[in-house]
């Protein structure tokens, strides 16, 4: 499996990362180099091997379902590039 320029543009779109045309060209080679290298995993027979989901063998911890924090918008909005009336401001989404 190898990526071409269209694939790079497609995954950049999926990742919402703007990639300039020259950069996209360079990424084709770089990503193929990395993907070619990781493909050696194909040498291994992993039939019946469970994929690791948790490196520490523990049960899922549960806590009481109650509110522990919140109701304080000021610190939440303090680092926002743009906010108004206690909300984050973004470009218009719905016409």
């Amino acid at each position, binding site marked *: 499996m190898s990526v071409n320029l269209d694939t790079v543009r497609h995954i950049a779109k999926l990742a*919402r*990362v703007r990639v300039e045309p020259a950069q996209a060209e360079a*990424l084709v080679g770089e990503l193929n180099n990395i993907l070619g290298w990781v493909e050696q995993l194909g040498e291994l027979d*992993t039939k019946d*091997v469970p994929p*690791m989901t948790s*490196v*520490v063998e523990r049960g899922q911890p549960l806590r009481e379902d109650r509110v522990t924090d919140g109701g304080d918008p000021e610190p939440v909005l303090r680092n926002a*590039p743009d906010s108004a009336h206690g909300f984050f401001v973004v470009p218009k989404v719905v016409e």
Partner: protein
Amino acid sequence: MSAPTRMTLAQARDALAAKKISARELTEAHLTAVEAARPLNAYTVETPEKALAMADASDARLAKGEAGPLEGIPLAIKDLFCTEGVESTAGSHILKDFKPAYESTVTANLWRDGAVMLGKVNMDEFAMGSSNMTSTYGGVVNPWRRNGSDEKLVPGGSSGGSAAAVAARCALGATGTDTGGSIRQPASFSGVVGLKPTYGRCSRWGIIAFASSLDQAGPMARSVRDCAILLRSMAGFDAKDSTSVDVAVPDFEQALTGDVRGLKVGIPKEYRVDGMPAEIDSLWQQGIDWLKAAGAEPVEISLPHTKYALPTYYIVAPAEASSNLARYDGVRYGLRVEGETLDEMYEATRGAGFGDEVKRRILIGTYVLSAGYYDAYYNKARQVRTLIARDFKAAYETVDVILTPTAPSAAFAMGANMDDPVAMYLNDVFTVPASLAGLPGISVPAGLSMDGLPLGLQLIGRAFDEETLVRTAGVLEEAAAFTAEPAFIAGD
């Protein structure tokens, strides 16, 4: 008493307790050293006022006999830790000027025990790198130089600022984080001790996430004892991190008994990789001989899937990173670059805010998680990760601890390896397997390369058995008697 910045953390603690020095004097000496070390570019933010206020509070507690285990100890904090009201940017332009409204659990634990914050230290952007060269603040200069050369070298990464600050004597210790070797490799390159605890030992809450199934905080300092002291304060269960594990935190310093008689030390044959420099191979043999002379028993072991660890890591870590870094969207914090639509704003913000290596990993991660490739790459890597963890499990049926080199080379020149990502990734060939298995590891400076640069040896322990790790590392440290000093020491 030696110069305050020349002491180890343990010596400083004892001098403070004996009232031979005040916390203020100790902190002032370090703040002077921090200024003197500016050419290294290790600190990204200096917090002298905060440091002095914390030191004065420490002096008050010392006077009242209420000193904590780290009372008055000045530390450097990796920029990946959120520190309330102090810039926490993960070395990234996208988090420019971000000042968290909260404190990470690990740093809060350090302040609870009396430590003093000197400032934030430089790192590879989002901890992605092995040289510290991917930081938006620029690279960190390793205080070490090759014999007879003034060429600037990297301190390793991603915790490069932490390693350089400790090596240059402008902090008694530092926090680091390790995802695939980011504590141990810079410790090796900079001639300091770095300990990556078992996954789950330290809370990840408030540490800016890179690869959540691998990230772990740990101490970096100038002795094994200092790391043991720091780890005790950093570690502990935290209900705010569902992967932190509720096990007792021992007094790791007590583990330094100096006795390794009868201990079985595994020597994995797969770590003798092609092209490994002879000096690293001979240092490894020297380490085996030291432990043997102390009464330990070296045992050759096999970790058959070792060669697959790096490619596994470079699927798992970017996959998790692509998901974690989705949060940087120009809406809630950090950089925003305006666009006509919401999607354009996201793309413009992320295009301008992330550096090349971070973009590369986000794209790799997005690709391996995308429809049609998920099974072939991501699931395959998770299966191989299981095999790697099983290798270690089997080995620990016959041995107590494993000894390997930390890195395949000494520090390299700033700018080297930058045009070949895979060559850069190979720096972590010896550290990544333990990361994938969640196991604790420590790097101890053990000798010098032919051109006078520090080289580390790594010990890998059983899960939650940092005590055996510390005990063995202490014996290695004593045998190595590493007293070499870097070319640059702050204030000299």
